[in-house]
């Protein structure tokens, strides 16, 4: 009867040790298998006790999991501790010559001999049995039981001198090659520790029987069938997997064969790459007339922008590219500063550079702004102090300001501009306006002076900051930088396309957000106005909006006031795009769970605070793909400005077809393909960047 003891480290493999124990009990009976060596009686030398206990058994299973060594935080291991129970058990077994079978569990590998302390190092040389705790458990247990039985059978007639590694006892396996086996063991590194094979024989008796059934070298991995690798395999899988698929492939090949060769011949092989006029392009059989694009390239990019001033456009483009790179590459820090540069500073520089600055801004405009500031200040002060029930000066201020505004509005409609101070005759209404405004301003300031508890201070500060900014801007635009003025009708080509697209994007974003918030507002008038605007604009084609901007806008303005044509188109495009942007943003706002709105209110945020800090950041992140889609369609829509006579990229390309020097049958196709490629690069680039950003910002959940 085989008596088996199981040694294991509790922290390492208690569970699977229990399962193995149960199996062995079922196989050999519960008097044959011992798992937990009984507690050592007091006052007994535990080494001696263990040796005695182990002397009663025939076989020790050493269960080795991943943490059998008992790694400690300081880099050492518990096995290095001479008093470690696991070590003591193995040591005792080795000393008394009990057979040992190392059992590897949890896919653990045999510890290296160098990792083991000297007294138990011999363990590393024993051939282990691996036991899989999962599906393979049954099979592996069969093997373990087989090994135990073989060992018991072998040890019974006193075959303790069987040596595992020598291979001399395993002639039954004809395919067994001692050299190969030696190599296998040397891989495990235990031939390097100075032991000779003979030594191992003392501690590893009777594995010969088992060894016959254990595969020692891995079977070489066969290559996959030739039909499923390489080009052939790929084609079989993707192109010819079924009859239907094969037919589709043939259809596809025919389609490509029909379409692609003519295109390639036209665009490359038969194309005219150099030439100075139509004669080079009208030769029979000629393809694309790229010489036309080459000759007109400057116009396609700059329009009729004066040759000597084109460096200004280039400089603007460089500044723009710098800004976009700073904003678009996630790894570059200082996003806040970059945003200020791109959205606040760059537009001013670009405007001055492209137009030349030096605008004719009258001093009265500035004065009008300051007067407006005074009036608004007085109004705020008056309202605040009245609301705080500090009557007296506040009431006077309020009355004066309301009167002043009434006079101003009244004169506006009666056709008597009240701010006509430049003329000699100061009308009565102007006088009333100035007096009332002045009284209101002074009374208002006095009413809130020294009252830090009143809330109007910040509003007034913000107001004057705004007015100051506008004044400074007007000043900048009025400065003569020595740049020649370039009229917008001279602009053209890609320059106009980009100006329209970028200003449309810049203007439609805030407008769209405002409209989206308005559409979701609780206030009926605001909601209704937003819905009316959005639905009206979305219901009509862009071209009618552009017609409206170009034909009707002059009608709507006072006689004599005239707008730049490009500016009119810009306004049309921006308003049109804002409606679409509003719907995109609204989608994001609706996707934010109500809990976010409620939580924002619960922590005491006001409407604008909660929008700015909680809702909009989340909503805009969700709709980034939608925003970029809007931008892409805006970019494509800019081409429509050619219908109202602005020469954008497409417009200028088309205008050049009529150039008698270049008119040929191939010219239109060439020009359109060139324009299409430019548009395609921009749009495709944007869509790829959008996909990239979407992946980067994806936090893994969507609500």
């Amino acid at each position: 009867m085989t008596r088996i003891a199981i040694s294991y480290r509790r922290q390492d493999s208690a569970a699977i040790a229990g399962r193995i124990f149960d199996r062995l009990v079922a196989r050999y009976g519960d008097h044959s298998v011992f798992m937990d060596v009984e507690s050592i009686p007091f006052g007994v030398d535990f080494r001696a006790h263990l040796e005695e206990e182990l002397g009663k058994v025939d076989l020790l299973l050493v269960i080795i999991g991943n943490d059998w060594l008992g790694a400690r935080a300081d880099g050492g291991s518990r096995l290095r501790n001479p008093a470690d129970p696991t070590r003591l058990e193995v040591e005792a077994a080795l000393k008394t010559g009990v057979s040992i079978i190392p059992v590897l569990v949890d896919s653990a590998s045999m510890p290296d001999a160098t990792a083991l302390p000297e007294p138990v190092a011999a363990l590393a040389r024993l051939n282990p049995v691996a036991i899989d705790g999962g599906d393979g458990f049954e099979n592996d247990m069969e093997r373990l039981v087989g090994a135990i039985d073989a060992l018991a059978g072998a040890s019974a007639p006193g075959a303790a001198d069987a040596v595992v590694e020598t291979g001399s006892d395993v002639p039954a396996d004809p395919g067994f090659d001692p050299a190969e086996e030696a190599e296998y063991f040397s891989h495990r590194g235990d031939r390097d520790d100075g032991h000779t094979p003979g030594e191992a024989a003392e501690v590893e008796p009777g594995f010969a029987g088992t060894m016959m059934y254990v595969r020692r070298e891995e079977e070489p991995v066969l290559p996959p069938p030739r039909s499923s690798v390489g080009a052939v395999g790929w084609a079989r899988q993707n192109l010819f997997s079924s009859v239907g698929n094969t037919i589709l492939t043939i259809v596809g090949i025919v389609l490509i064969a029909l379409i692609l060769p003519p295109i390639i011949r036209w665009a490359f092989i038969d194309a005219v790459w150099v030439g100075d006029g139509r004669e080079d392009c009208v030769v029979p059989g000629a393809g694309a007339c790229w010489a036309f694009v080459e000759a007109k390239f400057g116009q396609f990019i700059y329009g009729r922008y004066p040759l000597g001033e084109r460096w200004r456009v280039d400089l603007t483009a460089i500044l723009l590219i710098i800004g976009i790179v700073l904003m678009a590459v996630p790894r570059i820090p200082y996003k806040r500063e970059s945003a200020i540069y791109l959205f606040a500073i760059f537009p001013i520089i670009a405007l001055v550079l492209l137009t030349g600055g030096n605008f004719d801004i009258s001093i009265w405009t500035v004065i009008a702004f300051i007067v407006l500031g005074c009036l608004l200040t007085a109004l705020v002060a008056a309202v605040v102090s009245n609301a705080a029930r500090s009557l007296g000066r506040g009431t006077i201020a309020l009355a004066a300001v309301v009167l002043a505004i009434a006079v101003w509005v009244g004169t506006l409609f009666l056709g008597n501009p009240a701010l006509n101070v430049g003329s000699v005759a100061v009308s009565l209404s102007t006088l009333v306006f100035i007096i009332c405004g002045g009284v209101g301003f002074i009374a208002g300031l006095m009413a809130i002076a020294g009252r830090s508890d009143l809330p109007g201070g910040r509003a007034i500060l913000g107001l004057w900051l705004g007015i100051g900014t506008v004044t400074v801007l007007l000043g900048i635009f009025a400065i003569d930088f020595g740049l020649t003025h370039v009229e917008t009708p001279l602009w053209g080509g890609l320059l106009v396309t980009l100006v329209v697209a970028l200003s449309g994007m810049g203007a439609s974003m805030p407008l769209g957000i405002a409209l989206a918030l308005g559409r979701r507002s609780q206030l009926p008038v605001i909601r209704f106005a937003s819905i009316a605007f959005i639905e009206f604009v979305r219901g009509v084609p862009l071209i009618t909006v552009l017609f409206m901007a170009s034909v009707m806008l002059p009608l709507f303005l006072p006689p004599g006031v005239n707008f730049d044509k490009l500016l009119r188109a810009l306004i049309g495009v921006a308003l049109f795009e804002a409606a679409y942007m509003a719907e995109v943003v609204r989608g994001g706002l609706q996707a934010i769970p109500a809990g976010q709105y409620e939580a924002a209110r619960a922590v005491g945020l006001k409407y604008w605070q909660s929008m700015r800090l909680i809702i909009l950041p989340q909503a805009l992140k969700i709709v980034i793909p939608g925003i970029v889609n809007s931008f892409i369609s805006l970019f494509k829509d800019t081409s429509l400005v050619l219908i109202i006579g602005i020469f954008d990229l497409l417009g200028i390309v088309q205008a050049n077809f009529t150039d008698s020097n270049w008119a040929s049958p191939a010219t239109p196709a060439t020009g359109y393909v060139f324009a299409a490629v430019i548009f395609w690069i921009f749009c495709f680039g944007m869509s790829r960047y959008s996909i990239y950003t979407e992946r980067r910002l994806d936090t893994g959940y969507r609500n």
Partner: protein
Amino acid sequence: MAIQDMAPESGVRGPVRNSLLYDPKVRGVVVQVLLAVGLVVFFWWVIDNARENLERANIASGFDFLWSRAGFAISQSLISYTSDDSYARAFVVGLLNTLLVGLLGVVLATILGVLAGVARLSRNWLIAGIAAVYVETFRNVPVLLQLLFWYKAVLAVLPGPRQAIALPVGSNLSNRGLLLPWPIAEPGFSDTLMALLVAIVLAVGVGIWARRRQLATGRPFPAFWTGLGLIILLPIVVFLVTGAPLTLSYPELKGFNFVGGLHIQPEFVALLLGLSIYTATFIAEIVRAGILAVARGQSEAAHALGLRSGPTLRLVIIPQAMRVIIPPLTNQYLNLIKNSSLAVAVGYPDLVSVFAGTVLNQTGQAVEAILLTMLVYLTISIATSLFMNWFNNRVALVER
């Protein structure tokens, strides 16, 4: 402080916090009143300016001009129209032309888009690749550019009528446009049309009966094939019995031009081609997204219930994909109809080109012409929106 005496209940937060300034209702009312007043003043100002400007230009506002003689010809018209007709009739001609190109464009774009969308999902690498290249190429190029390309770079450089490219069944393509054979009805053809009508009514009836029977007994009836057979066979039988009262008129070259057949102008071809090819790319993406949106478990469950792949597609996948596909699809249809206004660039006489173009320039009635044009598009889109809301409510998933 005196103020605190006046508002003793305000406690530590100070008097100002209790003022009307912080009452959300008051604030809301004030803001709304300001907005309303602002809007009224703005529109008053705009209208006042417009009135003044029109007076200066000596243009009488109002819609009376609609009834005066138009005096210009329109190259394509679905109803009879001469230059002696009124502006109002020109408006109708333009509107019908817009609807014609819109309707045909929607049909073509849907066919092409569904094909491309399904192809892009194909497991066949080549087909998926071709579809992807098509979608990514044409989606990222402005539709106006595409229209102009077809019109000026492809159709305009086709050979003249004498060297026209012959197409199957007697049609041909030249720089004058596309010429197709066209059936001309002879007396007695109305019987065939009647038969078709009867067949349709019968098919619908069979469908309703089959559905009722299946609900009652569980036994299916091939209503679709029966209906299709009825609709195809009955008119053909009647057509043959009545002695085939239909002749085909083929286009023939006489002199420098073609006579007979159906003449489709190059402007129309370019517009239809450009709009369909462009819109189809978006439809392809919508169809693809819709099919991908149906969870895999749905088809697996259908297979587990014993449905074969045909019924699985028809009864499980498509109905669910449709829920996702239809709303954006309608948007694309609307876009196509709105984009048909680009006809003005290629000279096809659609609503915008006729009314907001020629009529506006002749009469100077900018406000009326543009407003009427916008109103038409607005009506189409609002009607569609209302339909979409109704449809969404019908198909929306009702969850708990």
